[in-house]
C-alpha cells in the first residue's frame, strides 16, 4: 500500500438552533426578550456550512475523513444535530445547557469550540471549521473570528466559494466584500464562515433521515470542557420597532399638495 503524504481532512461544523427565520418575532410583555415558544430550526447560515462540508466530501471523496457537527444548546438542540446528520455529517457533539439557562454569548461559544478542538489530537484533529457567519437570532457575527483568534488559525470569513487542496493543505476562498468579492489563499487549519451565496442546502432525504438516527451523538457539559457560559452582557430592554402608520386617500391634487405642505415637504 502506497503511503499517503497528505493527512485527510477532519471538518468540524458548529450549528445553532435558533428561532426560524419565517417566524414573526414577538417581544415578550416584560420586554426582556422575544417569545421563544415558536418554531425553531437550524440557523440558515449553519445549514449552508453543513451543506458545504458535505459538498467538499462529494468533491474530495476520501480526502475528507470526517464531518462532525457540534451544537451548544438546550436538550431540543439535538434535533438540529439530527438534521445535520441527515444532511451528511458523520457524528455529532451536543454541549448541553439547561433549558432555562441564558443563551451563551459569542465568546463563550468560541471558548467552548476552542476547548473541543484542543481536546482532539492525532487522527481526530480538526483541520477545518466551517460555520455560519452569524446566527439570525442575536446577529452577533463574532464567533468565527473569536474562535480563529483563540486558536491562532487563519480565518476566511463571508465565504461565497471554498476550494480545498488536501495535498497542499491549503484553501482558496472567495469572500463577499463591499462592492464585490475577494479571493484569498489560506493555509490549513482554518476557520471559514459562510455567506448566503455559498450554496443552497439540500433537503434531508428519507433514507438519510433514517440513517441519521443511528449516528452517534456525544453529550458534553460546559464543565467537561472547562468553560463558563455565564453572560457578560446585560440586556436592558427589548422593544418592537414602531408600528408603521397607514396611508390615507386624497380626493384631489389640491388636497394632496396641502397635505404635503402640512407634512413639511416643499418644492426645492
Amino acid at each position, binding site marked *: 500500500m502506497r503511503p499517503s503524504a497528505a493527512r485527510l481532512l477532519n471538518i468540524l461544523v458548529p450549528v445553532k438552533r435558533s428561532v*426560524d*427565520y*419565517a*417566524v414573526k418575532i414577538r417581544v415578550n410583555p416584560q420586554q426582556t426578550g422575544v417569545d421563544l415558544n415558536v*418554531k425553531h*430550526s*437550524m440557523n*440558515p447560515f449553519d445549514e449552508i456550512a453543513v451543506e458545504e462540508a458535505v459538498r467538499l466530501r462529494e468533491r474530495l471523496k476520501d480526502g475528507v475523513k470526517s464531518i462532525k457537527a457540534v451544537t451548544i444548546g438546550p436538550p431540543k438542540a439535538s434535533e438540529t444535530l439530527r*438534521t445535520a446528520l*441527515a444532511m451528511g455529517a458523520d457524528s455529532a457533539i451536543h454541549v448541553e445547557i439547561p433549558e432555562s439557562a441564558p443563551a451563551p454569548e459569542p465568546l463563550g461559544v468560541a471558548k467552548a469550540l476552542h476547548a473541543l478542538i484542543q481536546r482532539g489530537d492525532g487522527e481526530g484533529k480538526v483541520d477545518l471549521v466551517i460555520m455560519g457567519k452569524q446566527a439570525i437570532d442575536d446577529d452577533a457575527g463574532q464567533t468565527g473570528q473569536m474562535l480563529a483568534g483563540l486558536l491562532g488559525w487563519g480565518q476566511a470569513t463571508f465565504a461565497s466559494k471554498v476550494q480545498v487542496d488536501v495535498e497542499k493543505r491549503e484553501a482558496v476562498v472567495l469572500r463577499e466584500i463591499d462592492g464585490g468579492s475577494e479571493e484569498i489563499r489560506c493555509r490549513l487549519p482554518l476557520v471559514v464562515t459562510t455567506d448566503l451565496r455559498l450554496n*443552497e442546502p*439540500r*433537503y*434531508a*432525504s*428519507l*433514507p438519510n*433521515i*433514517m440513517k441519521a438516527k443511528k449516528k452517534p451523538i456525544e453529550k458534553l457539559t460546559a464543565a467537561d470542557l472547562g468553560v463558563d457560559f455565564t453572560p457578560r452582557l446585560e440586556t436592558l430592554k427589548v422593544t418592537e420597532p414602531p408600528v408603521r402608520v397607514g396611508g390615507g*386617500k386624497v*380626493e384631489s391634487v389640491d388636497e394632496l399638495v396641502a397635505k404635503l405642505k402640512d407634512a413639511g415637504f416643499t418644492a426645492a
Partner: protein
Amino acid sequence: MSFLFRRQHLAFISRCRPFSSVGRADVDYFRTFLPTHAILTTLPNDSGSVAPAELDVYNRDWMGKYTGRATTVVKPRSTEEVSKIVRWCNEYDIAIVPQGGNTGLVGGSIPVNDELILSLANMNKVRSFDPVSGILITDAGCILQELTDYIAPHNHIMPIDLGAKGSCQIGGNVATNAGGLRLLRYGSLHGSVLGLEVVLADGTVLDQLTALRKDNTGYDIKQLFIGAEGTLGIVTGVSILTPAAPQASNNVVLALPHFDNVLPLYRKVKRSLSEILSAFEFIDRTAYDLAVKHGQGRGLSDEDVAGAQCFVLVETSGGRREHDEEKLNDLLAELLDAENPLILSGVLSQNPAQFSSLWALREGVTEAISKEGKAYKYDISIPLDKFKVVVDATREHLAERNLIGEHAVKHVMGYGHVGDGNLHLNICAAEYTQEIQDALEPFVYELVASYRGSISAEHGIGAAKTHALHYSKDEVSIELMRKLKALFDPRGILNPKKILE
C-alpha cells in the same frame, strides 16, 4: 326628466337586445348615493369619466382569456347600496356581473357583453368574530388572506386556502364554492358556511346571516347561493365557521415508482396519520419536471427522483409537534423498511422554508405550465383509480391525431387533490389551436362522463363550460336549475350567460 328619456330609449333598444346598456341616467342615479371614487365609468359625464384602460382590471380575467366590454363599475360600501343598485338595474333591465377578486379560472366574473360590474371590493369590513365558537361574520369583499391574518391572533384559521388567497374575496369564494388545499381536512364551504346575507335580483335583502351550527328549519336556502356564481343573488355577507389553528405542520414529498402505488399509499397514510393528515396531493412526473424547470420550489436530488413516475405530497397539521412528528416518522420508517416498498425515496421538510419550498412544487405547477406554453385545463372529479387512465387516454388520443410534439401539444399531465378525488388534467401546447381544442372536446368530457365524474370539480362553470354542463348534469337537473334561475331572477339580470346558456 332624464329618467323619462331613458324609458323611451329602452323601448327602442329592447327590440334588438335583451338588456339595456348602462347610460348616463343610470350613472347619475348611482351618484345620488355613491361617492365619486365608488363609480368608475367611461361614459362621458359631467362629474368626469375615466379612461377605458382603467376598467381593464375589471374587464379582463388574470389569465387574459376573457374580456368584457363593461363601461361602468360600481363599488358599493354597504348592503343597502348593493340593494339600491340591483333594484334599479332590475327595473331598467340592466344586467349585472358581481365581481370579487376576479381570480376565477372560468370567466365567471367577466361580462360577456357590457353588463354593469358590481365590485364588492369596498365591502371589506369584518362584522364580528367570536373566538369561542370560531364563527366569523364578515362583508363579502374581505380578502381571504386578510381574514386569515385577522383571526390568526385568536388562533384560528380560515377553512379554505387557495393559491389566490392574496386577491380573492370571501364572497367570491362562497359564490364559486372554491375548493383548494384544505378541503380534505375541513370540508367544502357547503359545510363551513353557516349563514349568508344575499341581495336578490329585485333588490330584496335575504338575511340568513345566522351563527348557528344547527338549524333544521325547512329548506336550507343559503346552500343554493354557494356555487351559484352570482346567478341567483349577490352575496354581501358571510358567516363562516373557522377551525382552531393547528399548532404544528409538517410535510413530506414522496417519490413513487408507479402510479399504481398511489392508492395503497393513500390508504396506508390515512390509517397511520389519521386525524393529523391535512393534505394528500398528487403530481405526475411531467408536472413535477415542469415545476422544477420553471423554478417553482426546489426539486429533490437526482438520486431521490431517479425512476420515479409520480410524487405525492403529504401534509400533517396537529395540536402537538412531538406527537405529529412521532407518527410521521413511524410511518416513514415503515414505508422505507417495507419488503416491497411503495415509495422509492422522499424528503421531509426540516424548517418552514423547506415546508414552503415543497408546497411550491405542487402549487407552482399551474404557473409553470403557463410559462411553458398555452394550457388547456380540465378540473375534473373522477374515481381515484382512474387518474392515470384519464391522463394516458388523453395523451394517446392526441398522439393518434399526430398532435403530440413541439409543434402542437408539448405535455399532457395530471396533478391534483387525491384526497378529494380531484384531478387537474392539463394539456400544455405551443399555441391555442382549433385542432387541439376539437381533439380534446368533447373527448375529455365524454371520458369523464363515462366514469360518472364531474367536468368541473372546483373551478365552476362560469362562461367557459356552459356548453359542457350536460356531461355532468342530466336533463332533469338542468331543467330544475333553469326553474330556480327563473324563480330567483325572473328577468335574468344576474350574471347572464353564466352556468346556464
